[in-house]
């Protein structure tokens, strides 16, 4: 928002230097001179040359390089190492180089003079190739060749005014002086934009830094930004985006280990999340990250791995032992390893290098293995990591960091500091018991999704990675053979319990049968009793009948006797 606003109000000329145009929200002020100053060897000439070459090649703005120190041949030889074909551009009329030689011993001053010769040469070169950009490197050399400082100062002031009048976007380089930015105080004349380059050595490691001291009429980043000069030119690393306004993705990507994916509620990681895999040496951090790489490349995504302790070749070979063929991804151009010793650069440089490589390769998955190899003062380390995570998040890159967690007093705080930046923390642990070592894995946190709280044992074999549910029971968490033994014991106990219960079942059956038998007997005796009862009843009836019959008979006989 700010950048659009400022570009609207103040036209800017892009330098084409990675990161610098971001820091300045668009580049150097168009049609005005800018001062680039710094001590010897800090990259002023290179910065200026890059500005010109990019102008000529990328933005169709030819440029004049007025060199007060180096000859044209030396200049083009120096920048050839960066892949700039200065000779070709000169032949094509895109760049003109004028070497201004001022030799004190040849010069005798006899009265009034001005620097009209310089103006005319510059004007002539500008007109010849219709230049839009100008570099004056390093104009203060004039003060060594000519003694009339008052004339030089007023002429320089006139020169900068002249550049402005002609609408030329110019870089004036200046050597760092005592107590001021440049030896001759050029910053007084060139007041629109001042860039300070610095080359500092700390703990035997050099870090180049760039700062925009002032930029009239424009917002700009005010921090010191590390920058990098290597065979690919200059790149500046914009430090942190101040706000945490990333676009977040709901897309789920696999970790490459099926059973690990299953530990997350959503079946994988959110794209663009940062994952920390921590564990001591040999717990399988690299192996898990290799799976993640493999899965990403298999999806056809670009994947970049920054390795600090092994070479890319070595990782490929080792991954092969768990059945992963990373080499085919390398060959297909989907995977890139960037291996460097941590001590090769300072933290800032590592960051700048990563930034540049990521900008070029545009990976969707980045592995940093191990992040704990980066050493430095704790504050700086924390800041660097923060920016690294930031940079990756801002680009929606899924990042896997491995870390050698050193349990105990030192390193703990680092680790906690790191883990709070992470969205997902997978912890690997060695468990040593019963004379063997087994690897366990658990998920400590996973922002934005439910995850398994269980400890899993994980096994690495030629068939790949496999997670096994660890034994969790009254005897604690058991892994390895202890788990197998425990499982066998449990099985035996279960068998015993089963046998017990069967015996009890049989007992019950037996008892039931005996009771049923008793019931049957009782029923029998009941029936007998009933039968007897019936019999007795019958007899009674018969007797009654007989009695009745007899009585009737007697009566009849009595009547007959009458």
């Amino acid at each position, binding site marked *: 928002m700010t950048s659009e606003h400022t570009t609207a109000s103040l036209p800017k000329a892009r330098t084409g230097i990675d990161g610098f145009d971001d820091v300045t929200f668009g580049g150097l002020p168009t049609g005005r001179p800018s001062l680039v100053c710094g001590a010897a060897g800090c990259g002023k000439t290179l910065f200026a040359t890059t500005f010109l070459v990019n102008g000529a090649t990328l933005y169709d703005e030819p440029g004049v390089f007025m060199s007060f120190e180096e000859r044209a041949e030396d200049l083009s030889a120096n920048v050839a190492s960066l892949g700039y074909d200065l000779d070709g551009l000169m032949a094509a009329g895109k760049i003109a180089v004028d070497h201004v030689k001022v030799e004190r011993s*040849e*010069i005798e001053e*006899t*009265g009034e003079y001005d620097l009209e*010769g310089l103006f005319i*040469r510059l004007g002539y070169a500008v007109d010849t190739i219709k230049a839009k950009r100008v570099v004056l490197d390093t104009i203060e050399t004039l003060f060594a*060749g*000519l003694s009339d400082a008052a004339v030089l100062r007023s002429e320089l002031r006139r020169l900068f005014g002249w550049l402005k009048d002609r609408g030329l976007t110019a870089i004036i380089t200046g050597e760092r002086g005592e107590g001021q930015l440049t030896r001759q105080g050029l910053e007084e004349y060139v007041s629109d934009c001042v860039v300070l380059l610095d080359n500092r050595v700390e703990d035997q490691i050099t870090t180049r830094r760039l700062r925009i001291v002032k930029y009239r009429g424009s917002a700009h980043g005010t921090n010191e930004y590390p920058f990098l000069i290597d065979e690919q030119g200059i790149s500046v690393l914009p430090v942190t985006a101040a706000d945490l306004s990333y676009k977040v993705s709901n897309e789920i990507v696999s970790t490459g280990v099926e059973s690990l994916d299953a530990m997350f509620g959503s079946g994988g990681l959110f794209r663009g999340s940062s994952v920390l895999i921590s564990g001591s040496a040999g717990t399988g951090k690299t192996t898990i990250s290799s799976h993640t790489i493999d899965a990403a490349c298999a999806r056809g995504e670009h994947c970049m791995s920054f390795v600090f302790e092994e070479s890319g070749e070595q990782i490929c070979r080792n991954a092969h032992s768990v059945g992963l063929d990373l080499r085919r991804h390398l060959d297909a151009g989907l995977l890139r390893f960037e291996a460097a010793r941590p001590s090769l650069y300072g933290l800032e440089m590592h960051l700048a290098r990563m930034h540049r490589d990521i900008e070029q390769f545009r990976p969707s998955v980045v592995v940093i293995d191990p992040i704990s190899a980066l050493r430095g003062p704790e504050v700086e380390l924390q800041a660097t990591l923060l920016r690294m995570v930031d940079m990756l998040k801002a680009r929606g890159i899924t990042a896997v960091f491995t870390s050698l967690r050193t349990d105990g007093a030192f390193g703990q705080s680092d680790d906690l500091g790191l883990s709070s930046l992470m969205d997902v923390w997978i912890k690997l642990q060695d468990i040593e018991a019963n004379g063997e070592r087994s690897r366990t894995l658990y998920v400590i946190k996973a922002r934005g999704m439910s995850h398994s709280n269980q400890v899993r044992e994980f096994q690495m074999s030629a068939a790949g990675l496999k997670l096994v549910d660890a034994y969790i029971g009254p005897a604690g968490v058991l892994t390895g053979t202890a788990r197998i033994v425990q499982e066998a014991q449990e099985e035996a106990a279960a068998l015993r319990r089963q046998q017990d219960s069967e015996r009890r079942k049989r007992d019950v059956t037996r008892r039931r049968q005996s009771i049923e038998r008793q019931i049957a007997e009782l029923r029998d005796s009941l029936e007998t009793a009933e039968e007897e009862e019936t019999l007795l009843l019958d007899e009674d009836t018969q007797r009654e009948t007989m009695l009745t019959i007899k009585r009737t008979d007697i009566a009849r006989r009595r009547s007959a006797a009458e």
Partner: protein
Amino acid sequence: MSGGGANAPDPAEYQLRLFIAGTSPRSQRTIENLRRICREHLADRHSLVIVDIYQQPELAEAAQVVAAPTLLKLTPEPLRRIVGDLSDEARVLRGLGVYPLPRGGDGSSI
């Protein structure tokens, strides 16, 4: 102004090029000063070419001219650049490697 051909050796002992920027009073003054010095000290021993760098800017680059005016002494060796309006005659002569002859001492020059 002798020796017109580009590669032809200039027979004059002192070959001089004066680079001026336009016809400003300073340019005029410089030319006058130089003519006078040449007349007094280098009569018949020099050749002089006056270049207006506004007219021929490419020559300014070729001759490594920065300041204007600049008097370039090509021969005799070593090469010298004398900048300024040549008002300080002693310094001009020193730059040219010419020392006032003894006979010049009894009359005209300093």
